């Protein structure tokens, strides 16, 4: 411990510069563990024999200096500082047998393990990246031959398909294209045509039912259509000013009379 303290205070100019560089370079460190690892390297010892106490001291003085220089430290640096301060106190004070939790030595050993493991990962990462690598040191086939896909198509059809196909053709004549069945529909246009030719004679009130086309009254479907068309045509003629309409009562017959031309 004393020897380490001495080395710390007898730091060469170079080490001092390095220590200052550490402070300015906070952003360059990937977290407190990274910084601790760098600090531990300055002890130039085997990571397994590292003095965690010394490391904690260095880290805490780093944080102090950073504060003096008003360098913004990320929260995890400060959390680590607090934890190291706690660890330091545990390592310095004689163990309290009543206290629960891991001993300072255990905590220190784990930190040393973490640092050693991180260093080991960095070493193997470097070894990995230094390996002969594909497309840099060794190469795949430059002119690969494509697997040619030969597609063979077989067609399937069953006897049922065949017979249904034939049936479809032979019965096509029985089909007829879709048309509206209009034979039971009397349109308003038809009613208008019919009525226009007749209203000239309607000098007196006549029930519009008498304008119904001949032969449409027997079939209820036809009757309904013709009634609607005749009524609509009557309204149309009234709108045009050709006729007048009247109805004496609800559901009473609607009567129609030619309108006299305005003089």
């Amino acid at each position, binding site marked *: 411990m004393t020897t380490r303290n001495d080395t710390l205070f007898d730091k060469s100019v170079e080490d001092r510069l390095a220590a200052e560089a550490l402070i300015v370079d906070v952003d360059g460190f990937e977290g407190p563990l990274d910084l601790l690892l760098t600090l531990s390297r300055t002890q130039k010892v085997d990571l397994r024999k590292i003095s965690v106490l010394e490391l904690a001291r260095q880290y805490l003085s780093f944080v102090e200096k950073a504060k003096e220089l008003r360098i913004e430290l990320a929260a995890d640096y400060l959390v680590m500082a607090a934890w190291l301060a706690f660890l330091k106190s545990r390592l310095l004070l004689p163990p309290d047998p009543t206290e629960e939790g891991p001993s300072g030595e255990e905590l220190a050993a784990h930190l040393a393990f973490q640092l050693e493991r991180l260093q080991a990962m960095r070493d193997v990462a470097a070894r990995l990246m230094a390996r002969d690598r594909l497309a840099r040191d060794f*190469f*795949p*086939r*430059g*002119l690969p*031959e*494509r*697997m*040619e*896909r*030969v*597609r*063979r*198509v*077989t*067609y*399937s*059809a*069953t*006897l*049922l*398909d*065949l*017979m*249904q*196909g*034939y*049936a*479809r*053709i*032979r*019965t*096509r004549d*029985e*089909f*007829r294209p*879709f048309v*509206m*069945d*209009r034979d*039971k*529909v009397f349109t308003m246009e038809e009613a208008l045509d019919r009525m226009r030719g007749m209203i000239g004679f309607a000098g007196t009130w006549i029930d519009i039912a008498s304008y119904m086309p001949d032969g449409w009254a027997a079939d*209820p*479907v036809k009757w*309904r*259509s013709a009634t609607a068309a005749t009524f609509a045509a009557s309204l149309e003629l009234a709108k045009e000013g050709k006729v007048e309409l009247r109805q004496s009562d609800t559901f009473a017959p609607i009567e129609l009379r030619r309108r006299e031309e305005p003089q």
Partner: protein
Amino acid sequence: MGEQERMVEAILFASAQPVSVAELNGRMPHGCDAAEALVHLRKRYEGRGVTVVKVGDTWAIRTAPDLGFLMQKETVETRKLSRAAIETLAIIAYHQPVTRAEIEEIRGVSVSRGTVDQLLELEWIRFGRRKMTPGRPVTFVVTPSFLDHFGLESARDLPGLKELRAAGLLENRPPPGAMPKMGEGDIDDDEASAGQSELFED
């Protein structure tokens, strides 16, 4: 194996294009003789799975011609025969020997060359004797392999229209009476079903 031969081997393998002797020499260390190394390499690959071939003035490694089949993957796809093909085939089967004009008359549409070719290729139809009518048109008949595929002893075993109907094969067409009508709601039930059954009668 000589160092220069190794180099030529590696370059030919990794290059995306066939490589000329000049380029080989350019890429190999000064003083190398790619042409000579190529001679050795070519001999080494004789009778192997891949061979060193000359392509114009350039060199490449290629699969041995007799192993080309390894680079192919056959996939079999089963497709349903098109409706046009089925109908054409059916007409030929029912009416053989039949000319193209006759097929078109029965189908009501022209028969494309592709449809006939496809059926010929499947070996389900073949050309029959020419008809003794003006123009002496060719006819089509079905083949034994057609009968084989459809499990028929002869084309005469194909069921007739009446049998098709009896078998219910004609039922799935929309009967004309089922078309929506104006004022349909007024038609009483008896009338509607009467109209329908009429259509289903022979």
